[in-house]
């Protein structure tokens, strides 16, 4: 470039003095233009005639890479540099040399007073985030700048010009203000429950006062109707079209992910008038994200700030806001859906009750027609066996009638249609009379029935009361095997009557007690006379008691007994009325309760008859004898197990015709019988007292002698589910009631003949159990996974992974559409890299299933469609068969994909596929959970990272930095790090600071102080100057009190560091020889705390090449309950071994090593610096990202490697891999911007060479498919020539670390082979 400038013949050139000539050579485009400028005819004259202070100021400005403008002379003629030229937009280059007022017309009113002040007084100005509406692309734009006007003093002490470094802060200012709106909207939406609330909340927050959102309008569809305006910012609310369609060009629809820019003048004429007063000229229409399930159709309309272009950041802001609102709509939508579902359930419940009522009525007629003829037949029958059969039929028809009656009564009370007919009566006598029906029964059962009923006047419906007492008594009998049942009625006072039924039975478990009065609830108490029951008895009792204005409660102690209390109002309390004549049938006995001898009512008869069956059900001790007197002994033995005596007798009758029969009344006695004599088949009921049918089967399967006996299970519970439970428990067959005799016989016969099949079934059961265990284990592992990597690991390790050799998860990034893959298992690292990020449309199964939402079951990859040829070839070694499934979140949207692979072609059984499909469901939900947590973290860390850009332009050293949000909150904080390159390329300013507090306020203070520090280094980088300036500036920033700062200027050529610390923990220096020490000089108090006049100490130390400097905030070392010294010691110990690690690795490893149990309580900023330089064991350089500079790097690195005398081709391999990595870093990590630097750190260890190359950006997802790109070839060389390679990616950039083992002396490598 020097040569170019000389060759060009230009009029001003020869006249340039040496200092300016040197500066223009470095000054790029503006420098060249300055050199060629016709200064001789300019009012300022030829530069050779300029005063020395102008020349040096202009020289500094031209050579600087930082934007600088210099104002010269009374007319303030301007000279600026390359960095400043973009601010001038189209005015450049004509602006050079012009008078300031001609150039900066649009902002002259703002800046001229400042300029005039500096010219007059010599006092510098400082403007922080000042809004200047510069004309950009021909339009005035809202832009922000931080700058200082510093005086240029002439020899005589007057001000002859102004020097002004400028930094544009627009992005930060806008970023902060947009984040604030996003935060406010998020807070507003947090508790909305309906879409309407969400709409109102958004409209309220986005009221049109935010500069970047002049208005918002929300168009939402409901119930599939076209979207209409649901809400909008107040100023535009009534001026917008009602329907979304009116906004769209004719016959078009807004596709998912599509945005539409509307010109207000053309498409929103109603708002055009606002443009005059600064209203938006354009609006952006975004569809409500369709990916969200439960989401509504519709769109959001954003008014756009007319003073800002719709750049990437602005679009990103709109998208974030739209996503937030869409998500809130979606969750509100699902909430509404839930409520509607609840309403529907209530309606269904009502319909069911009505149905029950109708059906019960319909049952009564046929039952009556059954019972009547049966009575007649019994009366006419004399033959005992036939009579017994008829009796059985009658008993069970009566029982059915009783059940239908209580069902009807229950349905009536449920529907609120029960209509009690109260009769004034003596409740004591009535109760005693009803209870006495059970006297004979209790006697037979060996239970004492105690009646203790005092006279008690009450108004009750006698029929209902009968139902109450019979239900309670029959329950008591069911659960009482010995002792007594006591029925007590008394009047504790004038107004109340207490009725209690207590027993000494088996009691009710505490967890069942509270549910006992709920309808259909049945306590599962195995110790009962019968397991029969509909589960409505107690619920009905409670309803009836409540109809009478009473209350019911229950006390029970296991193995001690149960007591049910009823409390009713006494009739004395009820208004005195004339005693009604009971109009009921005499059977209720209400008219004369004392007539205890009156016959039982039909209702009572049914209850008692049923209870009698329970007593019968225990067969006499000799009852389990075979009923096989007439059957030959070689016939198979059938054991019948049922607690219902009628049923048992029926089964015996049916079976005894063909086989020998034995019977038992419950599981326990059946087991005893079986141990005496092994049956050939067991027919058992499910619901039985003591040990039920399922328990019986389980016990048999555990007993080696009985394990193989086939079991046929009978149950009244029909349905697939019930059958499943029976079969799962180990039953061989299942027969629902009612069943025909022929069917039963056939099934038993089939069982007896099916020994072979039985074996097979047992195998199936075992397989099923194994699968269930595998799934349970996988579910546990999955719920423990905290990251995608752990999730893949869990998948591969689980039996649900079917022993695959490779597993992978693809995670869809909804913003970029790219798919990020995590691999586990036997897969070469190079392929992991190549497929780490793939485009959504790439021909790779992990992407295909996300697009199609359909799984791919690949039994042989060679049979795949040719579009997959490339990935099939790449993965040939470890994938010949694969299962690839889309992963869905809880609402069914596809969020990723799962991949399992086997190295050989194979088939998959339906059971295997079923297992994997179940695992897929769990994995999808785990992925959703992990993704949500990670996204939250990314937002906080991403914001801070955006604020804390790491300037990688300096060649003075290599830099790593990391910011860690506090663990509990995961939100932004007040810690910062800063890197400021200085004019002298060997020098570099670094700083780490900590503003007090958390959250956005602290982040804002942090951001301002950091900018101020950055700007201060431009004027004068000396530590005392920068900290003094920060001190003064902090006094004007609210919330900046007590901020601590460490600041250092590093000179890599001189090998020194100048530093100072304002109340901040000491910087740590680790030398290459492994000595670590803190830099303890240069102390001063935290900002704003000290007195202004105190002497400021400065620290200076050696910073030899190869050493490592660490700046950090106190969050890194502090732990509760520990002194700070312990923290310092711990850091020293953790940092010392890292003296030969790349700076990026130092940051991540230190952060990991220092983490307190439970995570960091405070946020942490950490900065690591290693000065550029070479020692015998280290080679450190910050390499300009310019491909043309690589040969020079190679020459230096080769010299360094030659001195190491490495064996064989090692030296070449290190050289080639490092240069390939540098080329990749330049191409992918810096977008070939030559001002950026790539860090190269190579360390010679006793047994290896370790080289790291880091870039400031992220590699593009380029290596998906297609021909190997040259970047891909570079990776092949890097992996192929190194012994091991690690690639670490972060928002901050990518680091490639290559390890090369030093091998034996070259003698070990025969060169003979070459010369055959």
């Amino acid at each position: 470039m020097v040569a170019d400038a000389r060759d060009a013949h230009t009029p001003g050139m020869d006249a340039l003095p040496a200092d300016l000539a040197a500066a223009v050579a470095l000054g790029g485009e503006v420098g060249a233009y300055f050199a060629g400028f016709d200064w001789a005819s300019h009012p300022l004259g030829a530069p050779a005639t300029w005063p020395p202070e102008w020349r040096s100021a202009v020289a500094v400005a031209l050579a600087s890479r930082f934007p600088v403008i210099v104002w010269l002379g009374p007319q303030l003629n301007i000279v600026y540099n390359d960095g400043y030229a973009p601010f001038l937009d189209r005015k450049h280059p004509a602006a050079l040399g012009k008078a300031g007022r001609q150039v900066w017309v649009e902002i002259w009113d703002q800046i001229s007073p400042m300029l005039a002040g500096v010219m007059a007084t010599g006092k510098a100005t400082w403007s922080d985030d000042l809004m200047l509406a510069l004309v950009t692309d021909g339009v005035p734009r809202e832009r922000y700048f931080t700058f200082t006007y510093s005086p240029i003093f002439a020899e005589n002490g007057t001000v002859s010009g102004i020097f002004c470094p400028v930094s544009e802060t627009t992005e930060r200012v806008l970023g902060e203000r947009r984040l604030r709106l996003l935060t406010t909207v998020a807070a507003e939406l947090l508790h909305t429950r309906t879409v309407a609330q969400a709409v109102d909340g958004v409209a309220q927050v986005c009221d049109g006062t935010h500069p970047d959102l002049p208005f918002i309008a929300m168009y939402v569809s409901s119930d599939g109707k076209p979207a209409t305006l649901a809400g909008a910012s107040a100023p535009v609310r009534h001026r917008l079209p009602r329907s979304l369609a009116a906004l769209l060009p004719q016959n078009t629809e807004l596709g998912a992910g599509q945005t539409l820019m509307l010109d207000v003048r053309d498409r929103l004429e109603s708002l055009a008038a606002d443009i005059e007063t600064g209203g938006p000229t354009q609006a952006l229409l975004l569809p409500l994200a369709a990916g969200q399930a439960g989401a509504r159709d519709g769109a959001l309309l954003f008014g756009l700030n007319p003073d800002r272009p719709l750049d990437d950041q602005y679009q990103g802001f709109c998208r974030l806001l739209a996503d937030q609102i869409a998500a809130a709509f979606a969750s509100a939508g699902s909430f509404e859906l839930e409520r509607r579902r609840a309403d529907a359930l209530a309606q269904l419940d009502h319909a069911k009750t009505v149905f029950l009522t109708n059906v019960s009525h319909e049952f009564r007629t046929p039952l009556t027609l059954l019972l009547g003829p049966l009575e007649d037949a019994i009366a006419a029958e004399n033959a005992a066996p036939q009579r017994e059969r008829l009796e059985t039929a009658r008993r069970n028809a009566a029982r059915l009638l009783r059940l239908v009656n209580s069902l009807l009564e229950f349905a009536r009370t449920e529907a609120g249609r029960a209509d009690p007919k109260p009769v004034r009566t003596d409740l004591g006598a009535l109760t005693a009379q009803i209870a006495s029906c059970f006297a004979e029964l209790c006697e037979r059962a060996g239970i004492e029935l105690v009646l203790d009923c005092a006279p008690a006047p009450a108004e009750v419906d006698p029929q209902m009361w009968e139902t109450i007492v019979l239900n309670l008594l029959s329950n008591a009998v069911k659960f009482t095997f010995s002792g007594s049942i006591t029925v007590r009625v008394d009047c504790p006072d004038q107004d109340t009557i207490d009725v209690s039924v207590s027993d000494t039975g088996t009691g009710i478990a505490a967890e069942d007690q509270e549910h006992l009065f709920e309808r259909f609830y049945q306590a599962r108490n195995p110790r009962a006379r019968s397991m029969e029951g509909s589960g409505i008895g107690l619920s009905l009792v409670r309803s009836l008691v409540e109809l009478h204005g009473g209350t019911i409660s229950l006390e029970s102690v296991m193995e001690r007994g149960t007591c049910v209390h009823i409390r009713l109002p006494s009739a004395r309390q009820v208004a005195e009325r004339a005693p009604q004549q009971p109009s009921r049938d005499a059977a209720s006995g209400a008219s004369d309760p004392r007539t205890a001898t009156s016959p039982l009512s039909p209702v009572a008869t049914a209850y008692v008859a049923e209870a009698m069956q329970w007593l019968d059900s225990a067969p006499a001790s000799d009852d389990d004898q075979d009923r096989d007197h007439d059957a030959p002994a070689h016939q198979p033995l059938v054991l019948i197990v049922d607690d219902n005596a009628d049923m048992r007798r029926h089964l015996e009758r049916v079976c005894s015709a063909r086989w020998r029969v034995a019977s038992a009344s419950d599981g326990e006695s059946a087991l005893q019988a079986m141990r005496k004599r092994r049956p050939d088949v067991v027919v058992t009921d499910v619901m039985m007292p003591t040990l039920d049918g399922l328990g019986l089967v389980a016990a048999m399967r555990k007993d080696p002698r009985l394990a193989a006996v086939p079991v046929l299970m009978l149950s009244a519970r029909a349905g697939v589910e019930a059958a499943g439970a029976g079969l799962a428990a180990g039953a061989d067959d299942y027969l629902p009631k009612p069943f025909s005799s022929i069917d039963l016989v056939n099934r038993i016969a089939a069982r007896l003949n099916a020994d072979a099949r039985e074996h097979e079934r047992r195998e199936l059961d075992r397989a099923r159990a194994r699968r269930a265990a595998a799934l349970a284990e996988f579910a546990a592992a999955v719920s423990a996974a905290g990251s995608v990597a752990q999730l893949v690991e869990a998948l591969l390790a689980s039996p649900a992974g079917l022993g695959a050799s490779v597993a992978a998860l693809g995670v869809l990034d909804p913003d970029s559409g790219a798919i990020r893959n995590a691999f586990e298992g036997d897969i070469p690292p190079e392929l992991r890299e190549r497929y780490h990020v793939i485009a959504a449309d790439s021909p790779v199964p992990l992407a295909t299933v996300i697009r199609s939402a359909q799984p791919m079951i690949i039994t042989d990859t060679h049979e795949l469609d040719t579009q997959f040829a490339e990935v099939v070839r790449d993965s040939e070694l470890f994938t010949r068969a694969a299962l690839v499934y889309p992963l869905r979140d809880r609402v069914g949207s596809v969020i990723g994909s799962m991949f399992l692979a086997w190295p050989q072609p194979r088939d998959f059984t339906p059971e295997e596929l079923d297992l994997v499909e179940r695992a897929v469901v769990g994995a999808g939900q785990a992925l959703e959970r992990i993704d949500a947590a990670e996204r939250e973290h990314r937002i906080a860390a991403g914001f801070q990272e955006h604020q804390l850009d790491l300037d990688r332009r300096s060649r003075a050293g290599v830099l790593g930095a990391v910011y860690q949000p506090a663990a509990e909150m995961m939100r932004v904080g007040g810690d910062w790090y800063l890197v400021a390159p200085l004019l002298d390329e060997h020098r570099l300013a670094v700083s780490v600071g900590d503003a007090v507090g958390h959250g956005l306020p602290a982040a804002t203070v942090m951001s301002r102080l950091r900018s101020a520090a950055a700007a201060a280094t431009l004027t004068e980088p000396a530590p005392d100057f920068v900290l003094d300036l920060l001190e003064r500036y902090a006094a004007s920033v609210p919330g900046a009190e007590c901020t601590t700062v460490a600041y250092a200027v590093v000179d890599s050529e001189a090998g020194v560091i100048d530093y100072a610390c304002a109340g901040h923990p000491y910087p740590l220096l680790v030398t290459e020889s492994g000595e670590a020490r803190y830099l303890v000089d240069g102390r001063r108090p935290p900002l704003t705390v000290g007195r202004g006049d105190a002497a400021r100490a400065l620290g200076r130390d050696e910073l030899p090449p190869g050493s490592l400097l660490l700046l950090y905030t106190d969050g890194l070392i502090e732990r509760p309950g520990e002194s700070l010294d312990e923290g310092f010691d711990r850091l020293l110990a953790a940092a010392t071994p890292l003296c030969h690690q790349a700076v990026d690795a130092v940051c991540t490893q230190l952060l990991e090593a220092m983490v307190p149990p439970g995570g960091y309580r405070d946020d942490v900023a950490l900065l690591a610096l290693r000065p550029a330089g070479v020692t015998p064991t280290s080679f450190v350089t910050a390499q300009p990202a310019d491909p043309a500079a690589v040969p020079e790097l190679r020459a230096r690195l080769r010299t360094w490697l030659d001195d190491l005398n490495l064996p064989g081709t090692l030296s070449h391999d290190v050289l080639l891999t490092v240069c390939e990595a540098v080329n990749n870093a330049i191409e992918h990590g810096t977008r070939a911007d030559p001002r950026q630097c790539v860090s190269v750190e190579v360390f010679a260890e006793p047994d290896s060479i370790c080289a790291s190359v880091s870039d400031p950006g992220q590699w593009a997802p380029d290596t998906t498919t297609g021909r190997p790109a040259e970047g891909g070839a570079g990776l092949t060389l890097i992996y192929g020539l190194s012994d091991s390679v690690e690639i670490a990616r972060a928002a901050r950039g990518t680091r490639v670390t290559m390890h090369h083992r030093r091998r034996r002396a070259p003698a070990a490598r025969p060169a003979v082979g070459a010369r055959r």
Partner: protein
Amino acid sequence: MTAANFTLKTSQADLGPAMVAVTGEVDATNAARFTAAVEDVATEQPTVLDLSDLLYLDSAGFAALHRIVAGHAVAIALPAHSPLRKAAVLMGLPHHDNAEDAAATLDSGAAGGGRRNGG
């Protein structure tokens, strides 16, 4: 900041292919020039490229060689002691242990670059 440098030395036996010995370095900064220089010779006649004394060849250089070999009758000699040998194997660049072997494949009429020597 300068590009890398290479030198081509061409010798011609009476019969048979041109012998081109390459020295210096070939990388991304001069791969295009290198391609052009080699193609000048290779379009005229079958050519043996002798890389025995080539100091440095990066992935861009390998890509250039792949293109040259695919389009011309060129065979590459790269002896076993060369530090580039391992990289050439990784990149799948066909090569031969010495210039004679390379020339032989050209003589045998296998136009376009000879056998692949996976070795």
